[in-house]
């Protein structure tokens, strides 16, 4: 199971992980076009700050995924091989039950078009998720854990 963690002491609260998460999940995948020509998608990672303390938080891909258990559309499931908690965006109807169920506050409402929940998908197709690759201070890292 791949999981992304933040190093609180190293995070400088620059929010670039949020920006690049938005770019990665935009239509154009181009930073200028994403913010100039498109309605940018919600970031699936959230930087939290309190004075000198800051960290980024996204889906933990919980071994006991309450969001998947609560989903009324069968749109969230746990991959049996990888343990990854996956959202089938086509099946999502935007009822926000997962938003209420995720105790990390890691699922966002995407209201750009047809209403859909948005959560970390570990950037399928990329070797390293965008948030990790673009973090200027190496405050994010990915680990392979049991699930």
């Amino acid at each position, binding site marked *: 199971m791949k999981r992304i963690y933040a190093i609180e002491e190293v995070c400088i609260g620059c929010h670039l992980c949020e920006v690049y998460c938005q770019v990665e999940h935009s239509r154009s995948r181009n930073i200028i076009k994403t913010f100039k020509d498109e309605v940018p998608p919600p970031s699936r990672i959230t930087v939290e700050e309190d004075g000198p303390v800051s960290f980024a938080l996204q889906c933990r891909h919980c071994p*006991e995924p309450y969001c998947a258990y609560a989903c009324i*559309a069968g749109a969230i499931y746990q991959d049996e091989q990888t343990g990854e908690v996956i959202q089938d965006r086509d099946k999502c109807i935007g009822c*926000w039950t997962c938003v*209420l*169920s*995720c105790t990390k*506050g890691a699922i966002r409402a995407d209201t750009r078009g047809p209403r859909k929940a948005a959560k970390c998908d570990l950037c399928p197709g990329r070797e390293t998720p965008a948030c990790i690759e673009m973090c200027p201070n190496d405050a994010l890292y990915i680990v392979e854990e049991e699930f």
Partner: protein
Amino acid sequence: MATKKYKYLIIGNSAGGIGCVEGIRRVDKKGSIAVVSDEKYHTYSRPLITHLIEGDVDRRGMDFRPRTFYRGHDVQPYLGYRAQDLDTEGRSVTLISENGGKGNTIRFEKMLVATGGKPFIPPMEGLDLDGVTAMINLDQSLEVRKKLGRVQNAVVLGAGLIGTKTAQALSHQVDNVTMVELAERILALVTDAVSSDMAVEAFRHSGVQVLLGNTVTEVKGDSKGRVSEVILKDGTVLPCELFVVAIGVRPRTEFLEGTGVALANMKVGGGVAVDLNMETNIKGIYACGDCAHAHDFVTGGMRLLPLWPNAYIGGRIAGMNMAGSSHQHKWATNMNSVDFFGFPMVSAGFMLKPDKKGFEEITRSEKDRYSKVILKDDVIQGLIMAGEVDRAGIYLGLMREKVKTTSFKKELLTDDFAVVHLPFEVKEKIKQPIMEIE
């Protein structure tokens, strides 16, 4: 008439039944499983039946699990069969097919009852007219969809979850939709006066007529036996070609009458009595979902909680326990999430501040946004977020963990509220994945 034997028998093919299959298979990869349902369909998402009418979900989109589910989980489905003659000592049931013919006798070692709910239909004349229906299953939804062409006026009686979702769906397909509710607020179980008003406004803004403090007293039909109008308590006459009755759901427990499986008192709505393991008074027989009680982590008591997440998790825990694990279902409370015409609303626990010592409420009110928490001795016991729902789950987590909010109570509903401001141990726990279901 053959006799078949399975290790696990599951009555019900919706959230609870599927949760049970997945729970069993997490522990026991081999034990034989049979799933029985009187509905002939592959498992579908019941809360989406109104979306089928609205048109934003197609028939295939209703599938709750892929079509390979039963095969992939080594399950024998008996779809279109009703179970009866439960013998709790001999551990058997008889299956009756749709046309009434007796089918197999099924013997089992462990059983889950996840029979769901049935609509409450008031004693009223005219409810047998064509064009009058409840809205709790796929057949009813498909039937309404077929009739839409000749419906210009629709009336929905009841503004609970089913009524509101039905009215919303119909408004996309029918010229005139009226929702009639006896109470002074809609969705009474999941709103307070303020959030109800906001939701009503969303309905009215989208062209749905909402009549509160009123009800239907008479249903009239035409010479062809089709519904033609309903008459309200205040005398208003509403012409309609479709009349949906959605005033409530009751546990469906007839199957258990006289079998020795204990039911809860009707004063608390009935339903199968279970313990935290989801087991009934009869060892090896479990129950979950709309037909059964569940533990409410806010009130601390056992009650009916006819909600999808409760059914799924109750079934999953029952399944794991049936297969020999030991888990307790402590993740249920009154929790709901809806979106009406782009206006989102979530809620959990108490909606109104109980009139008792130690309770207080904090609210935040803006033009298109409203939020409220109800606290008891600084522990959150109620939540409403309307208009803006992002990060609502953090509050639900604090509720479930019974976290004292004393040190951050002032920030609870402000823009500053975030995981980073929570006490160290709480913050660190939230940052970690949930590993155990209890």
